């Protein structure tokens, strides 16, 4: 039985134009809509597969505003069996703050006798891109951490975590409990079923307040790169442009 905590973050959908909030402290998702990062979709998938395969449970956690319950419901619809919502203005929480809050939940659940074998997070959030929350969490709870995991298995209390390393595939064998950050690509996230959505509605979300005052992200402000006017040179239309294209290849010295 493997019990996993999977941590997600409500982020603006990144498929459309980026707009900033009026105070320039965050990317504004009011028009684009909200989602979780692709890495986290894969983390949810891994957590649900582990729960299904071992008769354990996947619990989803987020730190964010009241609206972030939407992301928790989505994860419940995918097969997570429980949800924890640390309700807070996420923008005011820097990566060290978020790690501390997750650590508080992990410790408190362990004290109540429902500790986790595995804590999964995304490798990096698609909005703030801090690349550090999972690692800070591991230190805060005193557990080992593997970064950039594509797939993993758990057998006899040992996690085999597979990473697409700089020189090829790598495997880490680490005893539970442990922390892992997940990279997109190892598993195909499932779609929610109607049955899953119905079941998700019945699950009560555990709502908690933050345990500490956030120290912040040392953010001065966000800004958008200056818009670059288009300087595109149209070489032609359709197959007739092939000659001009190969001329360009020759000019660039790529053939």
């Amino acid at each position: 039985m493997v019990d996993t905590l999977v941590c997600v973050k409500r982020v603006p959908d990144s498929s459309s134009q980026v707009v900033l909030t009026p105070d320039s402290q965050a990317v504004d998702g009011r028009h684009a809509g909200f989602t979780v990062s692709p890495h986290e979709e894969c983390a949810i998938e891994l957590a649900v597969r582990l729960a299904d395969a071992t008769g354990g449970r996947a619990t989803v956690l987020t730190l964010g505003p009241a609206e972030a319950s939407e992301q928790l419901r989505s994860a419940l619809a995918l097969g997570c069996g429980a949800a924890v919502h640390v309700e807070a203005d996420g923008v005011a929480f820097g990566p060290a703050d978020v790690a501390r809050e997750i650590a508080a939940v992990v410790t408190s659940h362990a004290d109540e006798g429902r500790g986790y074998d595995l804590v999964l997070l995304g490798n990096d959030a698609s909005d703030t891109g801090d690349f550090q929350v999972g690692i800070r969490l591991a230190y805060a709870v005193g557990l080992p951490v593997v970064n950039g995991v594509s797939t993993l298995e758990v057998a006899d209390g040992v996690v085999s975590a597979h990473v697409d390393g700089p020189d090829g595939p790598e495997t880490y064998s680490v005893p539970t409990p442990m922390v892992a950050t997940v990279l997109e690509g190892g598993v195909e996230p499932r779609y929610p079923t109607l049955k899953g959505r119905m079941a998700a509605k019945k699950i009560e979300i555990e709502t908690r307040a933050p345990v500490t005052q956030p120290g912040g992200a040392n953010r001065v402000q966000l800004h958008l790169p200056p818009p670059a006017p288009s300087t595109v040179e149209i070489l032609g239309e359709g197959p007739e442009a092939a000659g001009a294209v190969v001329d360009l290849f020759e000019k660039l010295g790529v053939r």
Partner: protein
Amino acid sequence: MILLWLECDANGVTEISLETVAFARSLSAAGGGIAIRAALFGDVPEAARDQLAAHGVDEVHHVTGAAYDAYAGAAWASALQDIRERTKCVVVAAAGSPRGNEVIAHLAARLDVPMAANVLAFSGLSPFEVTRQVAGGAALEDMQLPQRPALFTVAGHSWTATPADQVTSPAWHEESPAVAEADLVARVSARGEAKLDDSGALTSARVVVGAGRGAGGPDGFDGVIELAKLLDGALGVSRVVTSLGWRPHNEQVGQTGSRISPELYIPCGISGAIQHWAGCSSSKTILAINTDAEAPMVTKAHYAVIGDMHEVVPAIVEELNRRAG
């Protein structure tokens, strides 16, 4: 003093690590000529010695030993922490590669100081303020790093790996700092062979041919694969292609895939969403092939052909073959 964690491949110090050295030289100059130390772990090719001298590194800490034979983020950060404590470096940085971000994040957690990932530039020294990429580079963040050491990674391809004006003769320190057992628990225990596929060496290719939704289906890639082969290039695809299962994820270019910087990128049937642009914006020249003249990929490109990739790409292949005789 500035301490850099640098990565090597079989040919020497990696390109983006040398870019990080260029960033550090600029920081050093702004601070009145601060010494630059480099830490390298494990096997270091002979060529790296000349590169470090040519790029202006003043001292080198070469870390080896049984504890460092296999990668372990915590152990490597522990050694870096040891070097930083002895040398009193006020800045520790690495390239914004997966490993660079990981090692610096470990160090940040160990020292309980902030870390800025994917920094593009610094704007002030007191307080130390940097600008970094967020939202895959679609937005920028000004961030302060008031604590010492200041920790950050440098966004790949945001600096050019130019050699220094003056060649140095770096002092070389062979070291093997002690590591706590706990820092070796999460350690690479097995390694496999690198996969060979149509993505080739995507991140190091001089030419990348890209394909997106316009490919139309899993069978729609023959033309772009042939073009990539003719140009001695690699195939890269957009996220929609991997999400739909048309091509494997290791071919993905984008915020959640590979970041490329080829001499020439040829995106075919790719609209150019932020997710994709984050991975290809460092390309030196972009030639977009797209049916939609208003697609972001077309308007952001240097050159474009307006048309269906399934008609245009075979015509280019034919023209290449014709000229090759």
